[in-house]
């Protein structure tokens, strides 16, 4: 009843507007199918006089004879009609294909773009296809503001780190939740396998299972209005991946083939020194260290240690020996189509990549069958099934022996690659780098992962009455990982133990049951209501087995069982976590002008103690399509203008406590631990978990306000958005006095805030006959601040302190090299007024430098002319600093005898009194009375960069040519990725993009790739 009153009053107002003018014109507005269209704006062109059609599509309006009426409504072509002498003007509006709003996948459903009150970004399939790596996540780079997407590692199949609107947590995960066709799936590589294969998660990626060719769209949910439906897992944003489905019609076959060639993208990578330079450093360093009085004496020792080099038989460029041009090949076939009752999408694909490091490879085989059966008008059953297998051959990275981009500079060029028997050289075992031969390890050792993954989503939906759908979805994700790592017995780290072989497997079953009821209706033609209620249960069971043996009997035997000696004893674990959740969402709009949404989710999680197990998360959002108001009809430049606002609370239950050697699922418990605790044959336990029954999820308040606009005949669109993301109850390991027998206790003790602006715009700048040019871009400004933290926490290069940016560096201040004697100088404190040669007299301090960029984003350009399309995207980031973690070793000025260094250091070292030098005097054992040279701002660089992410040129073969061959379409393209990079800092010698937390850690450099692609549709 109330609703009718409301309606009546609106109509009354409309009628009021109409009165008071001379002549009245009336009529009815219908759609092409003859149905009446309510709510159409009717405007006298050039005036502010307007009316709105009523429920039956009728309107009345005051006009003059020369008036022109403009009829406009969302989803229809705008139509202008000259009044002339007519008094009744009926209009039939044509539906606008262009204006019909996009349907966007959101959590547990879909939405039309205008209906959204939250912040959502969509990446379409064509963008995803431009990525030359097996991981679709890179397609998100630059796609939307607020998203930082970092390909941390250039190795094939490596991980990608994504941060949605900054860092929301200190210790728990900062990764978004990944949901594929409705299933929240395991995405993080770190910690899933007990082996070292993934290099702390950098080098592996469980999501590489998914063929990007099968992806229809990727949707990123950024604010509470869109993520609260995911409750305790929504705090870091949600990435929804929807796979392709068939459409009614003839079978369409698509064949894609591509081949690509890769090299390092960044041109200013460190170069190693040659043997002559190394020899010079060697003798110079010995004399400087006081080991020998003269270089001639030092040379005798050089001869003893490096006989081959002394004889002129070794001058190794380790970097050159380990690297190559990478080759990528990809072949995909898919067929899709359907009848009234059945639609299908079936695909198979191969992706193979040879990395830029010798023997670093990735090969994937994948298939997918997506079927939807409309059994009756009301009953729909669908099943999406994907199977994939990949085989990855990795490398060690980081500051560890055998890591190619570490040893490339530390291994002496005086060590030959091969010995005189033609084997990889290992005779330096007793005095040099553990006898590691980084080239040999790439050939003689093994470091392999096989991953099989089956993801299936089965659902039954039944439309009980019009608009009321009951749906039951049952999904599972079976993930199997098998890592095999072998170190040969002759040289390198494993020679000590007679070779080592390891097999580590993970079996993970993730099942999910989701039951929903959805009711969607339009009341009185104006009130659109969509209600969702659901229950969901999820359980993840992870089984791990890890066996290692040492002492292998024969150089060609690598099987674990052949080893004599278990080390450590076999590890097995079966760990479980479960969620039980109730959720609901209500979306309402009035005549597509006023929008409201409300969502709530109650989550129970096994990861917390019985007292803190349940939490409730919620959001409210509102939208106001200002452009649909009649008073806006006269503003010709505006096609659509909408204000959105949302607020809500989400949670972060992704505990990621790598300081405790235990299962992250149980850190709340106070308990004895029994993992491989045995002494002299007696099994035992130790007090291991300090526990915290009060531990609960981190929660996050999200505020979001935005304006969306479309204008200039829809040639320009954009969004301006402001957000505040306040994390509270952050889980931190509260440091304890170690005299308690524990180093810390997990506790909810911190708050943090991220706030910022996101601006994006896109315009069809030129449309001249066959030529169109579209330019777009986005920018994100973000500020981070820790708002509550009782005690500062020093964490490597940074210190977390209340009132400061989470990623602000806290380092010793490097004051350069003393020209008088080539010694190192540090500032004593933050005033930078005094310098000292003894670093123990210096303090670490903040210098206003952070790993958080001031702003970042992307800009892109798409030009098309006839059958040619050229598109390019640039990414940029400004104001952040990056830290060279291995710097203190590679550029240790002789700290580690007798390791080599880079050409940059060699050429810029101090040698003569009075010389202004970048690097100090080279001196073996150069410790200057202090232990470590880490955490100095000497190794900190400006991280500002601009990178041409993609440049693609494609040509669609003309139908006249291909039609005869019954080919639907054929496209050839050339794709360049990362072909151009600008950095601000000339002294930066590693790729600026390879770190999400600012610490570069000797990973494989990012590639630039040139790809040739052919797509054929039949």
């Amino acid at each position, binding site marked *: 009843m109330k609703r009718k009153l409301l309606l009546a009053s609106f109509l009354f107002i409309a009628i009021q507007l109409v009165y008071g003018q001379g002549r009245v014109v009336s009529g009815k507005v219908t759609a092409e199918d003859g149905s009446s269209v309510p709510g159409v704006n009717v405007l006298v062109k050039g005036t502010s006089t307007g009316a709105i059609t009523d429920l039956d599509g009728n309107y009345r309006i005051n006009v003059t004879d020369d008036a022109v009426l403009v009829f406009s409504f969302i989803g229809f072509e705008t139509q202008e009609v000259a009044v002339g002498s007519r008094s009744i003007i009926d209009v039939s509006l044509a539906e606008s294909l262009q204006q019909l709003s996009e349907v966007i996948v959101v959590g547990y459903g879909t939405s039309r773009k205008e209906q959204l009150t939250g912040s959502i970004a969509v990446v379409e399939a064509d963008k995803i296809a431009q990525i030359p790596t097996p991981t679709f996540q890179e397609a998100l780079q630059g796609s939307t503001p607020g998203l930082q997407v970092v390909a941390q590692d250039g190795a094939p199949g490596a991980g990608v780190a994504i941060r949605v609107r900054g860092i929301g947590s200190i210790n728990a995960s900062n990764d978004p939740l990944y949901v594929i066709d409705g299933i929240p799936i395991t995405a993080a590589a770190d910690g899933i396998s007990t082996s070292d294969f993934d290099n702390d998660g950098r080098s592996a990626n469980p999501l590489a299972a998914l063929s990007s060719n099968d992806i229809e769209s990727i949707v990123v949910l950024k604010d509470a209005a869109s993520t609260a439906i995911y409750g305790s897992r929504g705090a870091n944003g949600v990435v929804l991946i929807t796979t392709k489905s068939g459409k009614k019609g003839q079978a369409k076959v698509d064949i894609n083939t591509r081949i690509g060639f890769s090299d390092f993208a960044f041109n200013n990578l460190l170069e190693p020194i040659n043997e002559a330079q190394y020899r010079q450093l060697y003798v110079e360093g010995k004399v400087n260290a*006081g080991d020998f009085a003269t270089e001639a004496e030092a040379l005798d020792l050089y001869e003893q240690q490096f006989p081959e080099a002394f004889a002129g038989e070794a001058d190794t460029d380790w970097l050159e020996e380990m690297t190559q041009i990478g080759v990528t090949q990809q072949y995909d076939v898919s067929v899709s189509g359907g009848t009234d009752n059945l639609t299908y999408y079936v695909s198979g694909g191969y992706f193979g990549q040879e990395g830029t490091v010798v023997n670093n490879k990735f090969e994937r085989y994948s298939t997918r069958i997506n079927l939807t059966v409309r059994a*009756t008008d*009301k*009953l729909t059953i669908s099943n999406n099934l994907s199977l994939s297998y990949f085989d990855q051959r990795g490398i060690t990275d980081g500051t560890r022996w055998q890591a190619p981009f570490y040893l490339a500079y530390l291994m002496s060029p005086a060590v030959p690659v091969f010995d005189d028997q033609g084997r990889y050289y290992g005779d330096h*075992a007793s*005095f040099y780098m553990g006898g590691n031969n980084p080239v040999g390890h790439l050939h003689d050792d093994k470091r392999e992962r096989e991953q099989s993954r089956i993801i299936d989503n089965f659902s*039954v939906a039944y439309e009980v009455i019009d608009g009321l759908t*009951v*749906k*039951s979805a049952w999904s599972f994700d079976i993930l199997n990982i098998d890592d095999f790592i072998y170190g040969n017995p002759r040289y390198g780290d494993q020679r*000590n*133990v*007679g070779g080592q072989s390891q097999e580590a497997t993970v079996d993970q079953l993730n099942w999910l049951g989701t*039951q929903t009821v959805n009711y969607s209706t339009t009341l009185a033609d104006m009130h659109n209501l969509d209600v969702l209620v659901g*229950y969901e*249960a999820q359980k993840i069971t992870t089984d791990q087995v890890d066996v290692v043996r040492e*002492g292998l009997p024969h150089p060609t035997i690598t099987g674990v069982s052949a080893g*004599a*000696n*278990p*080390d450590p004893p076999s590890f097995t*674990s079966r*760990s479980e976590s*479960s969620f*039980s959740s109730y959720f609901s969402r209500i979306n309402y709009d009035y005549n597509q002008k006023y929008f409201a949404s409300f969502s709530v989710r109650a989550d129970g999680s*096994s990861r917390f103690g*019985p007292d803190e197990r349940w939490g409730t998360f919620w959001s409210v959002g509102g939208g106001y399509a200002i452009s649909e108001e009649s008073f806006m009809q006269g503003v010709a430049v505006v096609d659509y203008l909408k204000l959105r606002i949302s607020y809500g609370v989400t949670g972060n239950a992704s505990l990621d406590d790598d300081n405790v050697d*235990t*299962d992250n699922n*149980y850190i709340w418990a*106070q308990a*004895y*631990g*029994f993992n491989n*605790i*045995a*002494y*002299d044959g007696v*099994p*035992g*336990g*130790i*007090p*291991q*978990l300090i526990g915290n029954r009060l531990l609960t999820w981190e929660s996050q308040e999200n505020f979001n306000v935005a304006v969306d606009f479309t204008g200039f005949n829809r040639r320009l669109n954009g969004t301006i958005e402001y957000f505040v993301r306040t994390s509270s109850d952050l889980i931190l390991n509260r*440091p*304890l*006095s*170690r*005299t*308690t*027998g524990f180093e810390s*206790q997990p506790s909810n003790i911190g708050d943090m805030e991220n706030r910022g602006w996101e601006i994006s715009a896109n315009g069809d700048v030129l449309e001249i006959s066959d030529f169109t040019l579209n330019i777009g871009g986005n920018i994100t400004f973000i500020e981070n601040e820790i708002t509550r933290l009782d005690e500062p926490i*020093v964490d490597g290069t940074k210190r977390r302190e209340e009132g400061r940016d989470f990623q602000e560096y806290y380092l010793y201040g490097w004051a350069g090299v003393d020209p008088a004697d080539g010694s190192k100088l540090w500032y004593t404190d933050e005033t930078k007024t005094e310098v000292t040669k003894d670093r123990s007299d210096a303090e670490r301090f903040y210098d206003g430098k952070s790993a958080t960029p001031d702003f970042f984003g992307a800009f892109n350009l798409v030009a098309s002319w006839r059958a040619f399309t050229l598109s390019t995207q640039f990414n940029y980031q400004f104001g952040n600093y990056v830290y060279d973690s291995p710097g203190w070793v590679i550029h240790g000025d002789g700290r580690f*005898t007798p390791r080599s260094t880079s050409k940059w250091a060699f050429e810029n070292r101090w040698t003569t009194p009075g010389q202004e030098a970048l690097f100090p005097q080279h001196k073996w*054992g150069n410790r200057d*009375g*202090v*232990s*470590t040279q880490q955490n100095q701002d000497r190794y900190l660089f400006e991280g500002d960069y601009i990178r041409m992410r993609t440049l693609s040129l494609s040509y669609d073969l003309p139908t006249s040519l291909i039609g005869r061959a019954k080919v639907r379409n054929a496209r050839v393209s050339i794709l360049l990725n990362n072909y151009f990079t600008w950095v601000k800092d000339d002294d930066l010698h590693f790729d600026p993009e390879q770190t999400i937390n600012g610490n570069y850690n000797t990973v494989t450099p990012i590639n630039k790739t040139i790809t040739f692609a052919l797509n054929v549709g039949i």
Partner: protein
Amino acid sequence: MKVLNKYIVLVILAMFGYSCGDDFLDLKPPLNVADDQFLLTLDDYNGAIAGAYDLLQDPDLYGRYFILIPDIMGNDVKQNASANRGADWAAYGGGATTTQQENREFIERYYQVINAANAIINREFTPPSGFEDQYNQVVGEAHALRALAHFDLVRLFGQHYTFTTDASHLGMPVVLEFDPEARPVRNTVGEVYNQVVQDLQDAIGLMTIDKSDKGNAGSVTREAAQALLSRVYLYMEDWDNAETQATSVINSGIYSLVDSAGYPNQFLDGNSPESIFEIVFSATDNVGSDHIGGMYKSTGYGDYLPSQDLLDLFQAGDVRSTMFSLDPNLDGGIYASADGLGRRVDKYPSSGASIATDNVPVIRLSEVYLIRAEARAKKASPDDVGALADLNMVHMRSVPSGTPYAGLSGQALIDEILRERKRELCFEGHGIFDITRNGLDLVRVDCTAPAEVCTVTYPDDRFILAIHQDELDANPNMVQNPSY
């Protein structure tokens, strides 16, 4: 069809009715037992004390660094060119920093041992009738391990007992019960020693099961506690009590010195007749090159080499001088021995398949003889004859062809006993402690460390380690050692 549709609706609606009960969220960890569900049976106690020993096995404690670091801070070893692990202590550069990881690990790991022992000692438990001895044995072992942990901590982080006349200088916190909120102050060295003595006496009073009942020397027994107590008294310069405790052990008749032929293998095989308490390393504990042996062997990290200072102390025919292997890669140059040959420490020789299975001695009968010899030579009215007899027990079994020491007294006798300690106990973690408690300068003649630390004059703040910064940050009551 309509009927079918109704059923479908009913089935789907029924799925809503299904929701998982509370037990769906109540999952048990696979490798953990809640504290209040443990230490309820005698088996639990056996598991808990095994856990405490397991903690001592760690490469940061008896597995490696507690054995290595006192020696590389002394003059029995020199750094190899590749020395990295622990090099900062050897060079007196890194003990110097308050952020050296092992300075933190020592604190954390030893207090884990103490915490494990406290749980055993403090929990109320009535053993089943007839099993009192077993229960008391476990509690006694816990007391002994708590004593050992405190004793090791106070030696690493505090100056020796007689550094001040009343032992009032900084020791380490004595922790006797678990309190997660505790921020303890540092007890004085005297207070720590008092607790160590008390715990060892309690242990001696509780334990009745000896090495022969146990079957090996892998755990603490009454005699092991007495032997450790004699060492504690030696450090306290309580010569009479040191002698008394040592005599109890020697007279127990449970132990005997192995002969010279069997000497080299006692570490490899373990459980020799002279072993009183050792940490057992078996293939399943395998720590690989992180075992103490890996620090010396060319097949391990090989970071440290025997110094000529030590090699010069051995007479011809001393079986102990055979416990070095030659390494041609080190021939010539500063890392070789005086004869130009490269040498490696081979006291912990396990290799290949059985690598890192050498047991690590905590205390052996030969040390108890040398403790008694030193106590007898130093006590108020020295017993030079007794001291010489003890010295010769150790000397003659290693040099059967040699001549017994005779006619030594006073400082000459003491010096010979201290030299014998080096010959006998080198690479077993006594190096710097024996130097500082005797008030000696550290003198390294064959020295590959930076020149300024080839001689360090007694006393020096750097003879003890820095409290790690993390502990200072977490515990405002913790005081740093001077000069750090």
